[in-house]
């Protein structure tokens, strides 16, 4: 993989697909690395997209600043990567921590994007997320990367995915443990210590925005995605059935298909955001269905919407 030099740092990236195609930039979550998007690259490149994957600063093989790094540094790195893509339409998609970075990018540089995808993302730290984040940070400090992995795996993935993987879990964890340095993860988590909510700035995002939220996402539940849906004007929320926070790992075929369809709809002028709410199919190939309008999509049980 080549490296981009920016601001004194080296960022490892990979660009695949036809030079003339619309581009997708995919942003990792915490503890992730670029290779986890390989299936997405294959699917999207087959549909004539260019796909840019990279390691965030502090992760994978990109530079890991020893002490000082903030979320604006990540945004600046994406700006430099987007510059590599030239004039064509660019779609930016991020998961979890990467979703937050993508959100910041869209607020600062929305004019460079054709569309934004928010996956398991958030614009503010709810009390639950704040306390969970603090607990994860403490766990990382006291127990190291492997403890954080032990915490995140059952929190973010379903039994259906974990069950068959139980025998291979140590090998899966080892790859992530080897590639992540604990000091760099501590620096990334410390970048939340002075976090200020972005909610008031969401209205400035004028581009089409698709928001994806796992049905059972415990870490960033529906309410956090609702903040995005309610405040980003041209957005739509799609609920991924039976999925948790890390549905990009669990349902790559379905998610890649949703990404491709979103971009195609935007480019063909068929995208209808408008704050609508949808339900994705269980697997790739199915239909995206409107969420029943008479029910409250914030509830886990079928409660009718309050009439206003």
């Amino acid at each position, binding site marked *: 993989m080549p490296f981009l030099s920016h601001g004194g740092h080296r960022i490892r990236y990979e660009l695949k697909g036809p030079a003339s195609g619309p581009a997708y930039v995919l942003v990792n979550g915490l503890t992730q690395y670029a290779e986890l998007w390989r299936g997405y690259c294959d699917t999207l490149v087959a549909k004539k997209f260019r796909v840019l994957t990279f390691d965030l600063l502090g992760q994978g093989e990109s530079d890991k600043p*020893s*002490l*000082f790094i903030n979320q604006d540094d990540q945004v600046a790195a994406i700006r430099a990567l987007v510059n590599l893509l030239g004039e064509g339409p660019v779609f930016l998609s991020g998961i979890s921590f990467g979703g937050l970075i993508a959100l910041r990018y869209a607020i600062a540089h929305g004019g460079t994007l054709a569309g934004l995808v928010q996956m398991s993302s958030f614009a503010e730290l709810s009390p639950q997320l704040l306390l969970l984040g603090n607990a994860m940070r403490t766990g*990382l*400090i*006291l*127990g*190291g*990367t492997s403890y954080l992995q032990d915490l995140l795996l059952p929190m973010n993935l379903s039994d259906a995915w974990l069950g068959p993987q139980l025998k291979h879990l140590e090998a899966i964890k*080892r790859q992530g*443990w*080897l590639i992540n*340095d*604990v*000091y760099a993860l*501590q*620096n990334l988590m*410390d970048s939340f210590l002075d976090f200020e909510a972005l909610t008031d700035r969401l209205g400035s995002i004028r581009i089409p925005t698709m928001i994806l939220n796992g049905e059972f996402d415990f870490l960033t539940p529906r309410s956090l995605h609702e903040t995005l849906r309610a405040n980003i004007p041209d957005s739509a929320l799609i609920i991924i059935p039976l999925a948790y926070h890390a549905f990009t790992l669990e349902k790559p075929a379905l998610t890649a298909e949703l990404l491709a369809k979103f971009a195609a709809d935007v480019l063909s002028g068929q995208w209808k955001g408008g704050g609508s709410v949808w339900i994705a199919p269980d697997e790739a190939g199915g239909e995206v269905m409107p969420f029943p309008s008479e029910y409250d999509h914030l509830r886990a049980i079928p409660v009718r919407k309050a009439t206003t």
Partner: protein
Amino acid sequence: MTPFLGPLDSSGGVPPLQQTRVAAFLVSAHGALARRLAIGTPLTLKFGWQTELHSQLHRETEIATLMMRATSWVADFELAHLCLSWETAWLPKPVEGVADWSQGVLIDLAALAHAIHAAIRPAALLPVEANAQDPFVLALRRIEFESSRLIQAQILFLKGPEFVAIRGCVNTAVERRHQQVRDLWEAMLKSIGVQCA
């Protein structure tokens, strides 16, 4: 060159020469931190933050003595000049841009501790097949486990409010110590056939 220690012996142990060279480096580095902390920690603690110094002193001492006891040492005639170069590297260095000498010494100590615990990942050198009950293997894992908390202690100190005005100097000192430790660690590993990933 491989990214891991080995080839392992039939019981999953690391070759003694590799053990000797890795352990000597770790004893030198953590021993240097222990010595500097011993000098910097008063006999009677008067401030809350000094309890952290006391704790770090004992963690560093534990790491050095653990490596001394858990290693299968063999004669290694190259160690004399290697140890000399390592020990020279750990000596206190002035931090540019910090006028207060004692403050500069403290920043350099924290920067060195951060680098030794962050840039060195001894457990990541172990292949999957390493014997989990081998004392040398366990010692390497123990050091990496302890490092996480000790790194955070340095982060809290180096990012503290009293250093906001000299943040650039602090950052330079930490980056320089990281580069120094990384270079020495990688050169030592290369000398025993291990290439850092």
